[in-house]
């Protein structure tokens, strides 16, 4: 039985193999998918999403989902790229650009997703595919750790705010080990679970998919 029937979901990073696979499987589960990417896509229906903190563009992207499908139920944020560099080797401007793209811009996406979901008034799910560096250190991993850790706790705070309003909006992270090949099928299946109504008691939670790397 399809698990996402009728739900309209925005998927970012849609040009990557992971998010392509995700988009196809979401549709197979009955969802209507709007794809967005940070680079111009040859496909006209793919939205151009901002790499930088462009508030108007994020607001418009989510409005487009509502325009196309008459509703908006979920957002899946693609994982950040790996940026391995020692703390002392980062130029401040580069660090700021990374932070802008992978912490501040996702915050804007989440902000406008929550606003739209609340307006609709039927709850919804926000899933960020992030990194286990939200919960551990690694040599050269400071920038990824900063954005993943910041995003994680920011989403937990947002989840508490949604709880306070009893608006049925849930925010959860999937955390993968960015040093391993992406376990695409597993991340896709986990995303479906978190977007589905089977997970309506799950918020501010982390689902770690790393073959036990974080555990030991």
């Amino acid at each position, binding site marked *: 039985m399809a698990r996402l029937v009728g739900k309209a979901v925005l998927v970012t990073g849609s040009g990557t193999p992971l998010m392509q696979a995700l988009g196809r499987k979401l549709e197979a589960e009955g969802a209507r998918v709007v794809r967005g990417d940070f680079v111009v896509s040859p496909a006209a229906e793919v939205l151009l999403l901002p790499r930088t903190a462009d508030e108007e563009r994020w607001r418009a992207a989510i409005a487009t989902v509502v325009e196309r499908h008459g509703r908006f139920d979920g957002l899946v944020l693609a994982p950040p790229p790996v940026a391995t560099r020692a703390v002392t080797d980062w130029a401040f401007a580069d660090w700021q650009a990374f932070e802008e793209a992978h912490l501040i811009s996702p915050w804007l996406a989440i902000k406008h997703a929550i606003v739209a979901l609340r307006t609709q008034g039927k709850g919804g799910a926000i899933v960020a595919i992030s990194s286990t560096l939200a919960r551990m250190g690694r040599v050269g991993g400071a920038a990824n750790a900063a954005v993943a850790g910041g995003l994680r706790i920011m989403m937990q705070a947002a989840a508490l705010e*949604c709880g306070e309003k*009893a608006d049925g909006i849930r925010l959860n992270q999937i955390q993968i080990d960015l040093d391993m090949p992406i376990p695409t099928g597993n991340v896709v299946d986990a995303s479906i679970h978190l977007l589905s109504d089977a997970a309506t008691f799950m*918020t501010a939670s*982390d689902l770690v998919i790393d073959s036990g790397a974080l555990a030991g």
Partner: protein
Amino acid sequence: MGRLADKVVIVTGGTAGIGRGTAALLAAEGARVVVTGRQEAAGRDTVAAIAAQGGTAHYMRQDVTLEADWPTTIAATVKKFGRLDALVNNAGDCILKPIEDLSLDVVRAMVRINLEAAFLGVKHALPVIAKTGGGAIVNISSAAGLKGGIGGTGYSAGKGALVAFSRAAALEAREKNVRINVVHPGFVWGPGVIDAMGEEGAKRFRAACIARTPMKRVGVPEDIGAMVLYLVSDESRFVVGADVTVDGGYMAV
């Protein structure tokens, strides 16, 4: 095709609450479920309800804290259904008391049911699941395994130890293609609460739980069962040593 087609799963403490709801969800996805517990009437009622929904379930009496019951239960499962794919260590108990009123016997009982039972389950099920070619073990801890609560020193000692034990066990089990993960339920409502606290006490406790849960509701057994189903299924092949909260946001407060 169900998400667990033909898998054989033991659910301990499956006679009520989270265990019963989980067993029903697993069976609805095609698993053949062995429900264990000490309450025979409730166990038979659980499997009858599953059968009425078209599922396959079988009740076996088991005291999970007795080592001798484990080889017996597992052997009987393999005899009945031919193999073992997964174990859900769900049986648990919670007694809350201020530490100065808490007896050593109660603390030992909390560690026994919440930690030792899972240890025995992993120890005895692991080689059998490995023989099937791999599978999964899901240990049900609690939000109390991750953070404190007043009156919960004994309970948290058991559940906290279960989390740490599970991480270490996950690394050993991984070698045998068996995945061990932990689920942390928040406040989940079951008949046990009323049994333990009485009608009035349960009503007050429920209001307190809702007030402390960001999503402003208590969980139902199926909320936890849905995550157990995912962790038992092949959808979570790469998920090892994880602990997942299903708690309406309680851990984030």
